């Protein structure tokens, strides 16, 4: 170790220029990959995305002979292939919240905003880097889950579906797109609330508590409101079939994008205005 008492003056350093959005993005990439929470959350998301469909496919295949006609009719190969997305979204959402609330909890945000005092480049870079990483990390397991579950179900012709069948490619790739948008939405909630527990609870409330509560409402209200909830609108991105009470993939997906944009806009306004 360098001697503590040694007086060593600060070596000069060329002033390499200004803060740019691209440089902040590189910095955010370093921040993201240098934390254990990132690696664990993404590993969990990958394992769930592949593991659950493989498990469901195996169980379905082995019990097929003893299933009733109704039960068999209720099985759809794409539901099996994308079953993991519904669960891994929680890992992605937790990480999305943590990406920003972790900085508030530890005080890192002060260092970040001292280096980038305009602040918004930090929000944009965090969002872009996390979204890109989430999409690129979850796309392979989503594809793998589709082909693996199809392979496991190979002896049941009725459960076979081609990747080129209308809507299938969109649904499968849509699984990764959905997870990416969930990550963005969660990050924005984290930026608004600046608190890890509050951010995760709010996400869980919007995605897992409010939708079932809708069933308490009169059916006509339920049918009028539910399709427009973020979780329901977003789900259409990776759903092959759509009934009369759900939005089509594109309107649903765009509505979810709108929710993400709204949450990010609120986060941006608050980020610039609030004391740190």
């Amino acid at each position, binding site marked *: 170790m360098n001697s503590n008492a040694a007086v060593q003056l*600060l*070596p000069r350093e060329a002033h390499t220029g200004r*803060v740019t959005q691209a*440089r902040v993005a590189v910095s955010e990439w370093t*921040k993201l990959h240098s934390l254990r929470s990132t690696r664990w959350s993404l590993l969990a998301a990958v394992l769930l995305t592949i593991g659950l469909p493989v498990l469901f496919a195996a169980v379905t295949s082995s019990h097929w002979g003893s299933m009733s006609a109704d039960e068999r009719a209720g099985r759809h190969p794409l539901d099996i292939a994308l079953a993991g997305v519904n669960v891994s979204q929680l890992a992605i959402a937790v990480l999305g919240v943590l990406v920003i609330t972790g900085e508030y909890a530890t005080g890192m945000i*002060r260092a970040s905003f001292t280096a*980038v005092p305009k602040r918004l480049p930090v929000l944009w870079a965090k969002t872009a880097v996390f979204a890109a990483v989430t999409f690129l990390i979850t796309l392979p397991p989503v594809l793998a889950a589709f082909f693996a579950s199809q392979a496991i179900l190979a002896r049941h012709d009725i459960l076979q579906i081609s990747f080129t069948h209308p809507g299938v490619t969109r649904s499968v790739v849509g699984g990764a797109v959905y997870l990416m948008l969930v990550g963005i939405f969660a990050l924005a909630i984290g930026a608004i609330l600046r608190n890890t527990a509050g951010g995760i609870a709010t996400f869980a409330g919007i995605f897992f508590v409010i939708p079932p509560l809708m069933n308490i409402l009169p059916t006509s209200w339920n049918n009028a409101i539910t399709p427009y909830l973020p979780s329901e609108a977003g789900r259409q991105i990776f759903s092959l079939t759509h009934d009369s009470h759900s939005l089509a993939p594109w309107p649903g997906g765009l509505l979810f994008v709108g929710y993400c944009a709204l949450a990010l806009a609120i986060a941006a306004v608050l980020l610039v205005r609030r004391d740190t």
Partner: protein
Amino acid sequence: MEQLPSTRVIEARDLSKDYGDKRAVDGLSFTVRPGIVTGFLGPNGSGKSTTMRLILGLDAPTAGDVSVNGKSYRDLAAPLHEVGALLEARSVHTGRSAYNHLLALAQTHGIPRRRVDELIDLVGLHDVARKRAGKFSLGMGQRLGIASALLGDPSTVMLDEPVNGLDPEGIHWMRNLLRGLAAEGRTVFVSSHLMSEMALTADHLIVIGRGRKIADTSTDEFLSRASGSVVRVRSPQSGRLEALLAGPEVTVTRLEADLLEVRGLEASRIGEVASQGSLTLHELTPQLVSLEEAFMNLTRDDVEFKAAEVDRTEAAA
């Protein structure tokens, strides 16, 4: 390109900050100049950290403004090259290594990795650079904070209580570093609640209490003002000297047969009086009041005085 020294300043104008109904900073105006160490002295809770957060644009002032090198901090295109800051509150993600922490900050400005290694060596964190910062001792955390502050080779260095948690060796290192940075022509602004520490490091002092400025003066002048009011005089003709020194503002206490303690006169004045009366002096010593004590007297008097002034103003309104 080197900037002109005159632009390397921190300048606060009527800076105020309220948190709810509590006024943390109250109409502060001051200028921090390059080439010297400026101490920012005040008791805990007097508004030093808040002022520094306002300088860095982390908090927005309720009134007034503060600029660094002539610009609001938020408008600096490359802030790490202009201001290096160490805040009192930890500003490091506990799960990230010291190396990655510094790297992430460096990358916002396109500062190369070589510089990160250089700073890690400079502050003596080489052996623990890859360990998570959450495992660091207070002193190691402080060294990491110093490394972050110096990363961009800034023209202004602003450190909030930098010797907190440092061992004696570290404190010595810090003093030399601060003096060296100032000698290189940088603006060095250092806060402390310890006057003894500031007396050793700072050339100039800005003293605040309850968010208000109490003094803005050279350290030497501040010390002499705080300690120069009591003088011990030893003279074989102490009786005649006592008579000559008598005056409305002067109190003379006899400690021994030939020893007087004089309040209200400078040592130089006492010497002159003795000389004019052809009296022999064996000792003439200004008494150093404990620095902390002097500081407490000064802040208490001033704050009470100003509070009384405000009450009168409010009563008149």
